């Protein structure tokens, strides 16, 4: 009975509407923040920051974007990769056309441009649902990638086809992109942005728009009868979701890989992010990050685990095992626990709340 809300009486609805209503949860989050901002940069190797933490945070952000659309508003999308690519190319065009622009502005503006594209591809959602919408978004995925490959304008007519992100800095001096940016600077930059955008997402889903999204998801005809306008509610979901995916794409290209290439955002990326959402938990903000952490870490774990036990397994065998594990997990979560890891976490907390008494 250590973890509980008993003894914490809320004297106002404001307190009851706070993001975290249980004291231990608040401590947990503050602890996590301190750990993420102070401890991780201090103790992590370059390898950890660049190959684990950056992809985890950036893909977590993309998963959060998809979760808003699919988990909250109920609109299945396979276009995540295309939207991430839009963000990446928008950032590249902005950064090269206006070199004096601040990187934060470039990234947020890329998100907004992606929002616009997302709204455009979201229009069919008024008419089509579920599987058919998934196919339509898949078409948009292929269209966008084709477009970025086809027209030289997007790559500033680069001959090699490989374009690298120009060096850019925050606070006038700290480089966050380009070959000379330190991993710690990149990590802290991405972390800050991800934390702020996560807070924004949390605010949205606990406000009226979040309830409207969930209402449309759970029963669209009833939502309409109580006065929720279908098209604008769905388009807002596409807009916000694409904003997150666009920002994630820009961060991926500028801060993680350092180069802008359509291949990084092909349909495999769309599925990868969708699997994060399914494993992490549909309709949960924390789930997006749990799923991202899981999918980023699992291959690394599978690659290294045999060595710890002194086993020697061929690389291709490991990648086969990886596919199998993913497949099994996705089937498991789809059938047994559609709310994913986030729900398992919640059940653990509910048990903890009652512990050690079963009732």
């Amino acid at each position, binding site marked *: 009975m250590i973890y509980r809300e008993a003894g914490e009486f809320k004297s106002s*609805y*404001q307190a009851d*509407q706070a993001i975290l209503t249980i004291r231990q949860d608040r401590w947990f989050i503050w602890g996590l923040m301190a750990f993420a901002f102070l401890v991780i940069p201090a103790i992590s190797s370059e390898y950890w920051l660049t190959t684990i933490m950056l992809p985890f945070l950036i893909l977590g952000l993309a998963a959060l974007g998809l979760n808003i659309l699919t988990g909250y508003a109920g609109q299945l999308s396979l276009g995540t990769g295309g939207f991430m690519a839009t963000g990446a190319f928008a950032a590249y065009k902005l950064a090269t056309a206006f070199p004096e622009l601040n990187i934060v502005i470039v990234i947020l503006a890329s998100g907004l441009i992606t929002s616009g594209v997302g709204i455009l591809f979201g229009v069919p959602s008024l008419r089509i649902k579920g599987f058919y919408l998934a196919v339509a978004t898949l078409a948009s995925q292929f269209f966008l990638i084709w477009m970025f490959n086809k027209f030289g304008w997007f790559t500033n007519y680069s001959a090699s086809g490989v374009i690298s992100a120009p060096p850019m800095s925050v606070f006038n001096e700290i480089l966050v992109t380009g070959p000379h940016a330190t991993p710690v600077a990149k990590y802290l930059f991405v972390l800050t942005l991800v934390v702020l955008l996560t807070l*924004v997402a949390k*605010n*949205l889903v*606990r*406000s*009226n*728009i*979040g*309830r*409207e999204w*969930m*209402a449309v*998801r*759970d*029963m669209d*005809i*009833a*939502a*309409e*009868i*109580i*006065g*929720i*306008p*279908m098209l604008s509610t769905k388009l*807002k979901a596409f807009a*916000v979701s694409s904003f997150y995916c666009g920002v994630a794409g820009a961060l991926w290209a500028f801060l993680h890989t350092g180069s802008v290439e359509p291949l990084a955002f092909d349909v495999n990326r769309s599925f990868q992010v969708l699997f994060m959402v399914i494993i992490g938990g549909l*309709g949960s903000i924390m789930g997006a990050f749990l799923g991202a952490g899981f999918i980023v870490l699992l291959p690394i774990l599978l690659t290294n685990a045999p060595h710890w036990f002194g086993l020697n397994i061929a690389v291709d065998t490991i990648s086969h095992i990886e596919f199998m594990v993913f497949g099994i997990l996705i089937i498991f979560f789809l059938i047994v626990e559609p709310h994913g890891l986030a729900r398992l976490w919640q059940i653990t907390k509910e048990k903890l709340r009652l512990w050690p008494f079963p009732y």
Partner: protein
Amino acid sequence: MFQRNIGDVILEVQGISLSFGAMRVLNNISFDIRQGEIRSIIGPNGAGKSSMLNVINGVYHPQEGTIIFQGERRAEMKVHEAAAQGIARTFQNIALFKGMSTLDNIMTGRNQMMKSNLLQQAIYWGKAQKEELKHRKVVEEIIDFLEIQAIRKTPVGRLPYGMQKRVELGRALAAEPEILLLDEPMAGMNVEEKEDMSRFVLDINDEFGTTIVLIEHDMGVVMDLSDRVVVLDYGVQLADGSPDEVRNNQAVIDAYLGVAH
């Protein structure tokens, strides 16, 4: 009995006919609804009662007839416009948002009154929060009124049937409607639950002056609660009048009340 406070006609249904393909579901139906009354629609299964509610709140578009609402002839409208006009309803087969809590479900009922924009909601502090708190207060009053404090945070999908019916009433009530359409709010309930629900219906009508259109199969309930009753039978209007008039109407006795239900 207390003094009934019944005003002018608020909604008038004139010569409504509705067909789905070759099937005629409503045939030249005409009746009116007065401000502040409890108006029941009864009839056997498949009589067209639910369809009539769907016509009133603009989900079904009748082929013939007109609806005069608040003195004006109503044009064909979109589904989401009924709420803005002050028409709220509950459904025969509960239509709650299953993944959301009781509180959130009832809060959605107030979506028409929420004015903060996406950006304000993203930042939350300030206008969006003030709005949330203001509406939360009203919703808490509804929760107290319906005696569902204990299930405030429970996802409605996990609630028993009777409780879901109550939450759905709460969501409709949250819109502060002019007219409340209740499609079999007591179906499948035991006697106590029916008594509770009847009390809520009477209290809503009495305290807020809400006009109520009620579809119900339990004749005892209908006769007790209603000011006036319309009787439908396979799309045809058999009778319209006070509970006593309807009860003694020969056509109604033949077609409906004579049949065991």
